[in-house]
C-alpha cells in the first residue's frame, strides 16, 4: 500500500541508512520533508496545479516487488541492466560520459566516465555526500534544495532520495561530450527516489541527458506498478551554457513524478528538452528563474501518450530580472483514451523590463477519445515587455493527407508520416545531432509504421 503512514513508516525504517544520514543538515531536512509530505498527502484535483492530474489513487496504489520465486519465464521478461546499457551505448557511438543507476542506486561497474577537464566533478550523489574534503559537502548542502520546494511529491523525494548524479563545473569549465545519466529500472526495486544536482559556475558549459529507458522486454503479462520520483536541480552561473535533455521511456505501469528546477545567472543560456514517451502517468514540473539580466531559456517539450496513459507538464518561467528572453514550445501526440496536459506559467516581475517571452503548445489528437488540455498563464507586472502565447488542439490536416496520397502514399503511411512530421519540429530544436538522432529513434519506437517511414527520414541521401 502507498497510504501516507506507510511511507512515513518506511522513511523511519530507512532514514538511518540513507546516504549522508550522518549529516545533521540533511537529517533535519529529510525529517521536515517527510513531515510535510505526511501533512499534505498526495496532491488531488483540489490543489492548485493538480486540477488535471490527481494523485489521490496513490493512497491505494501498491508497489509490490515481483514474486522472487518466479519461474524462468518471468526472468526472461526483464532485460538485464547491463544489456539495456549496452543497447543504449551501441546507439550512441559518439564519445560521452556515462553515469549509470540501477534501481535508484549508482552502479559503478556499469558507469564509464571518461577524462573530464580539470575543475569538473562528476559522481553519484551518495559519493558526494560522503566527501569530507574539497568543499563538496557544503556545495551539496547549498544545491540540495529545501523541504519546502515544489509540491508534496517533491517533499517525498527530499525525504527519501537515496542517490542521483552530482555534477560540479568550476568557473569556465566546459565538458564537450554529453553526460549521460541513465536510470535503469531494477526488476526487484519498485520504488526509487533520485535527486540530481548540477552546479555550473560562471561560464561553464555542459550537456546532460537524463534518461529513463524502457528496460527492454520488460513488458510481461502483468507488469507491476513502479514509482519514480526525480528532482533535478541546476544552478547555471553567469554566462553558463547548460543543455538538459530528458528522455522518459518508462514501462507501461510506471508512475513518474519529476521536477526540474533551474536558477539562471546573468547572461546564462539554458535549454531543456523534455521528451515524455513512457509511463502510465508522467508528471513533469519544470521551473526556471532568471536571477540576473540577459539570460536566455528554451523549454522544448514533446510527449506521446496512448491507451489510458496520462502525461502532464507544468512549467514556470520566472522573469525576475530585466532583459531576459524565454522560448517555450511544447508538442503533444495523444492517441487512444490518453490525456495530455500542458500548463505553462510565465511570470514577469514588475522591474523585469524588456522581458521577451514566447510560448506555444500544439497538440495532435490521433483518436476521438484522446484529450488535450493546454493552458497558458501569463502574469505580467512590468510594462515594457514582449509576451506572446498560443495553444492549439487539432487533428491530422486533410490537405496534407490528400497531398501525400496524391503522390502514391497509402493513407496509413501518409498518416504516420504526418504524425511524425508534427513531432519532428520539436526534435529539430535539439542541437547536437547525436542526441537528435537518439530522440528520433525514441519517438519512432512509439509510433506505428516506423519501419515503413524510415526511408523517408534519412537525413543525408
Amino acid at each position: 500500500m502507498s497510504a501516507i503512514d506507510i511511507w512515513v513508516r518506511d522513511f523511519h525504517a530507512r532514514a538511518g541508512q540513507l546516504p549522508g544520514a550522518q549529516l545533521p543538515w540533511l537529517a533535519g531536512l529529510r525529517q521536515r520533508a517527510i513531515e510535510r509530505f505526511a501533512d499534505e498527502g498526495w496532491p488531488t484535483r483540489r490543489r492548485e496545479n493538480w486540477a488535471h492530474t490527481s494523485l489521490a489513487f496513490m493512497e491505494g496504489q501498491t508497489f509490490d516487488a515481483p514474486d522472487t520465486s518466479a519461474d524462468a519465464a518471468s526472468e526472461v521478461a526483464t532485460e538485464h541492466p547491463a544489456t539495456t546499457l549496452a543497447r543504449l551505448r551501441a546507439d550512441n557511438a559518439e564519445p560521452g560520459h556515462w553515469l549509470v543507476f540501477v534501481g535508484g542506486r549508482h552502479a559503478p561497474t556499469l558507469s564509464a566516465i571518461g577524462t573530464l577537464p580539470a575543475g569538473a566533478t562528476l559522481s553519484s550523489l551518495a559519493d558526494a555526500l560522503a566527501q569530507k574534503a574539497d568543499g563538496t559537502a557544503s556545495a551539496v548542502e547549498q544545491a540540495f534544495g529545501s523541504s519546502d520546494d515544489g509540491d508534496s511529491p517533491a517533499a517525498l523525494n527530499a525525504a527519501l532520495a537515496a542517490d542521483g548524479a552530482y555534477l560540479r563545473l568550476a568557473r569556465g569549465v566546459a565538458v564537450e561530450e554529453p553526460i549521460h545519466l541513465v536510470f535503469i529500472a531494477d526488476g526487484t526495486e519498485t520504488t526509487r527516489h533520485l535527486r540530481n544536482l548540477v552546479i555550473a559556475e560562471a561560464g561553464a558549459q555542459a550537456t546532460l541527458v537524463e534518461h529513463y529507458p524502457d528496460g527492454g522486454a520488460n513488458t510481461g503479462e502483468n507488469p507491476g506498478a513502479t514509482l519514480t520520483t526525480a528532482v533535478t536541480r541546476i544552478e547555471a552561473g553567469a554566462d553558463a551554457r547548460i543543455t538538459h535533455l530528458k528522455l522518459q521511456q518508462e514501462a507501461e505501469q510506471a508512475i513518474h513524478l519529476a521536477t526540474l528546477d533551474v536558477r539562471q545567472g546573468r547572461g546564462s543560456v539554458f535549454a531543456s528538452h523534455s521528451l515524455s514517451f513512457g509511463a502510465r502517468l508522467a508528471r513533469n514540473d519544470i521551473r526556471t528563474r532568471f536571477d540576473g539580466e540577459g539570460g536566455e531559456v528554451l523549454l522544448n517539450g514533446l510527449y506521446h501518450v496512448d491507451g489510458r496513459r496520462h502525461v502532464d507538464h507544468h512549467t514556470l518561467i520566472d522573469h525576475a530580472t530585466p532583459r531576459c528572453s524565454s522560448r517555450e514550445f511544447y508538442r503533444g501526440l495523444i492517441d487512444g483514451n490518453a490525456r495530455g496536459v500542458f500548463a505553462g506559467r510565465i511570470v514577469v516581475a514588475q522591474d523585469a523590463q524588456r522581458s521577451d517571452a514566447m510560448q506555444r503548445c500544439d497538440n495532435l489528437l490521433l483518436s476521438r477519445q484522446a484529450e488535450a488540455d493546454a493552458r497558458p498563464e501569463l502574469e505580467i507586472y512590468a510594462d515594457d515587455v514582449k509576451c506572446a502565447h498560443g495553444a492549439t488542439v487539432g487533428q491530422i490536416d486533410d490537405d496534407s493527407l490528400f497531398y501525400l496520397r496524391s503522390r502514391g502514399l497509402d493513407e496509413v503511411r501518409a498518416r504516420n508520416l504526418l504524425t511524425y512530421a508534427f513531432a519532428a519540429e520539436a526534435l529539430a530544436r535539439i542541437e547536437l545531432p547525436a542526441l537528435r538522432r537518439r530522440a528520433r529513434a525514441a519517438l519512432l519506437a512509439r509510433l506505428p509504421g516506423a519501419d515503413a517511414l524510415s526511408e523517408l527520414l534519412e537525413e543525408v541521401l
Partner: protein
Amino acid sequence: MLEINNLQASVEGKSILKGLDLKVGNGEVHAIMGPNGSGKSTLAQVLAGRDTFQVEGGSVSWDGQDLLAMPAEERARAGLFLAFQYPVEIPGVSNAYFLKAAVNAVRRHRQLPEFDAFDFLARVKAEMKAVGMSEEFLYRSVNEGFSGGEKKRNEMLQMSLLEPKLAILDETDSGLDIDALKIVAEGVNRLRSPERSLIVITHYQRLLDYIVPDQVHVLSKGRIVRSGGRELALELEEHGYGWIGDTGEVPRAPAGAAS
C-alpha cells in the same frame, strides 16, 4: 483517354459540378478556364480522388478503368498527377526522400525496379536543373519555407519525375512571375507526348501563350459552357468572363469578338 460524362459533385451539401462532360484524348492538351467559383479546382480534386468532395452522379472512365472507384493513391500510382494550387508543407521530411518515395510507389505499380539512392539522385538532379531548382531544395523539408514560385517548381519537378499519363495542373501559373511561368511552361511542354494527356486549369490566358492547348473549355457554374480552339482563350482575355450568362447558358460569341 479520359472521358467524363455528366459529372456531378458537391461539398458539404453544396452542389458544385452540375453535369460536366469532357473528353481528353491521348497526347492532347486541354485548357480549362473559368471565373472564380466555377468549379475548376473541384474538378481537379475530384479527378485526383479527394474524398471531401461527394460525387453525386456521372462517370469518369480513364483508359477503360472506372476512375471514381479508385482511391487517390491508386490513381497516382496508375499515372494520374495533380499539380496543386497550394502545395502543402511537410516539416521534418526531406524533399529528396519524399520524391523518392513517390517515384518508387509509382514504379512498383508499373512493375519497374525501384531506384536506389544513387540512380535516383542522378535523375533528380538532372530534372532539378531543367526546372531551375537549386540542389539545396533536395535537402530541405518538403515545401517548408519555399516561396510560392519555389513550391510550384517543386510540383513541376515531381511531375517530370513521376512521368504521369494524365497530368492536371491546377492554377499552377498563379503567383508566378513571367520567368517562373516560362520555366513551368517548358516543363509542361517537355512532357508533351502522344501517350500523355494534360489538363491545364487556369484563370488567365497568359500561361497559354507558352503552353499551346489543343482545346480550350470554359467552365461556368459547374458545367462546360463553351469549347473551342486556342482562339477561345484570346477571346476570354479580351472580353473577360462577364459575357457568360448568369444562368450559365451557352451564349453566342458576343458582338465584336475577335474572329
